[in-house]
């Protein structure tokens, strides 16, 4: 399964090659052209397959290949590794986690003091992770230098696994933000469309939507759709709490009307809702104006591009392991497929 393959693959921002190779292998037979640009974006073109009047729309659908992670900034005399974050990570989720360092996937742990050594008052505070190190078990600096280098990327170590097989069809794994989007886009390429589909597997989203910015400039699309794995905060939930969840697991793809990076084009939001209703696909809104996606970069490309974002709700994103529902995944594929098929003849007014 492509989601499993991509979730297990390692590709922190700026180091997306392994993910890119797997994706290209999976889509090569379905596309007409592809290129890898200067920032490492994989841009695939699947030409319109339907006869229509006039030029088919150029539709850019983007999913970012990169994941959040760490980067080695120093090798200490005791053999431990200093590191910095790549992308947004809360200090608290890093404690005592297993990681893999560098291209050779050297195992390591982000160690922390045992409870015996932490005073009761200190336990109430967030840890100061600027003092934390990665322990790869090396005896000293020389031993560590034989295994890793400064500048090596570090990924969290988590393995994809399907959990519930009946109702929610849940799966856990790392980097669902945004390998879920990448897997949706791979699935979408299995079908034919009446538009020129530019499937952009983008680089460096987690450090500021950088890949999509140059990819959108090159593609110069008429319409853009970002595919994401987005915040899902339905657990833990206080009983009878009627406040705003961002998204809920199993309630369908989440449509963004606005986040911190862009305001969605209302015509595209309405198109998605119409397609969901027509094809009996559940959907929900991302009910918070938070985070940003590649749509933030795409909608400002050149003279502007009508844009929208659709996401697979994923619990615990930007942490070592996340959890999603394959029902939501399948419904996201169905919804975007229907929307792409409905774009024949132009954007609805």
């Amino acid at each position, binding site marked *: 399964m492509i989601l499993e393959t991509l979730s297990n693959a390692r590709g922190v921002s700026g180091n997306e090659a392994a993910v890119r190779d797997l994706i290209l292998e999976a889509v090569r037979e379905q596309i007409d052209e592809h290129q890898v640009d200067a920032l490492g974006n994989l841009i695939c073109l699947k030409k319109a397959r339907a006869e229509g009047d006039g030029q088919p729309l150029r539709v850019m659908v983007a999913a970012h290949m990169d994941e959040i992670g760490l980067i080695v900034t120093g090798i200490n005399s005791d053999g431990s590794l200093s590191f910095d974050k790549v992308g947004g990570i809360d200090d608290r989720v890093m404690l005592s986690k297993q990681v893999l360092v560098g291209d050779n996937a050297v195992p390591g742990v982000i160690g922390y003091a045992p409870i015996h050594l932490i005073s009761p008052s200190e336990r109430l505070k967030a840890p100061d992770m600027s003092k934390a190190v990665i322990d790869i078990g090396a005896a000293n600096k020389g031993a560590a230098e034989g295994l890793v280098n400064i500048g090596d990327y570090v990924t969290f170590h988590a393995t994809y696994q399907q959990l519930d097989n009946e109702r929610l069809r849940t799966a856990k794994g790392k980097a669902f933000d945004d390998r879920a989007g990448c897997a949706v886009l791979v699935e979408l390429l299995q079908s034919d469309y009446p538009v020129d589909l530019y499937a952009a597997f983008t680089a460096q989203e987690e450090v500021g939507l950088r890949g999509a910015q140059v990819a959108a400039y090159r593609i110069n699309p008429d319409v853009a759709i970002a595919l994401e794995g987005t915040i899902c905060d339905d657990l833990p939930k206080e009983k009878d709490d*009627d*406040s*705003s*969840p961002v998204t809920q697991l199993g309630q369908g793809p989440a449509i963004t*009307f*606005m986040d911190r990076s*862009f*305001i*969605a*084009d*209302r015509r595209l*939001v309405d198109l998605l809702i119409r397609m969901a209703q027509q094809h009996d696909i559940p959907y929900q*809104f991302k*009910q*918070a*104006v938070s985070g940003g996606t590649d749509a933030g970069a795409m*909608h*400002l*490309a*050149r*003279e*502007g*591009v*009508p844009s929208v974002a659709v996401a697979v709700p994923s619990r615990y994103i930007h942490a070592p392991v996340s959890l999603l529902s394959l029902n939501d995944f399948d419904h996201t594929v169905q919804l975007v497929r229907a929307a792409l098929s409905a774009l024949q003849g132009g954007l609805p007014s």
Partner: protein
Amino acid sequence: MKELIRQLVEAYGPSGHEGQIRALIEEQVAPHVDDVRTDAMGNLIALKRGRPEAGGGGKSVMVAAHMDEIGLVVTYIDEKGFLRFAPTGGVSPMTLVGSRVRFANGASGVIGWEKWMRPEGATSRPDLSELYIDVGATSRDDAPVGVGDAAGFVRPFEDLGQRLIAKSMDNRISCAVAMQALFDLGDSPNDLYFCFTAQEEVGTRGAVTASYGIDPDLGLAVDVTLVGDTPKARPMAVSLGEGPAIKIMDSGMLAHPGVVRWMMETADALGIPYQREVLQGGSTDARSIQLSRAGVPSGCLSIPCRYVHTPSEMVDYGDVQQAVSLLVELLGQEIAL
């Protein structure tokens, strides 16, 4: 001009939802320009072509006044029909409790605070997460609006004679200044692109794509600026009633020195008073224009404004009229930086 101002400031148009204000502006500017179009971001771009006989050396000039206003967007509707929301642009919770809002479809509401009239409310400031819009619904199902719909503030235009109060003086007063300048202009040697931009309040986004499309020789934003003339205000050498301000810098842009000089020399020649503006905090569309493509010499003509980003923003009518006169002179002449 006050009637034009009243129409513009009372219109609805939070960022990303500029359809109504755009239609209002388009109807009035269309007879005065050679071409008018709306781009993919929703910017209204009206072109008044240069006439070679009006003088040689015409430049292509982009004049940008953003038409969007700060507002609120619905994120959630609870079972009883109360709306939770997020801000579009810099909205302070201090200005919200008891404020009235209106949606694109005409639905109105009032903003409530969970802690109003409760002991903890007497000693704390409201947080956005504690506020809600009450649209008079009794359940989620009979709410007249949905998640993703945007609300704008509702306040009538108040004409105090010399001083004017309204919601969204930021930046409809500048739309009015740009429009009045267009109406008053004769032939110009310059190709003048009057842009009424979208989504300025969420990060000067509309001007990014508008300036890419126009690819101008020179960019000029018209926007409001803060003042230092109210009780215990942060010191700032701009006051109401002492003329429009010519921006030298703000936190997002250093104005092109040639543009600043051109603006000041033109004002001096006309005998129009102006104020030198250094704004600490905030920026304008000029920032996006300046950084477009390979860079565009840019500046900003500012209207001094009190109580910016509250539902009651105040400007001086003399400043406004002088801004129009200065803009007409700037745009009507051959420009040498």
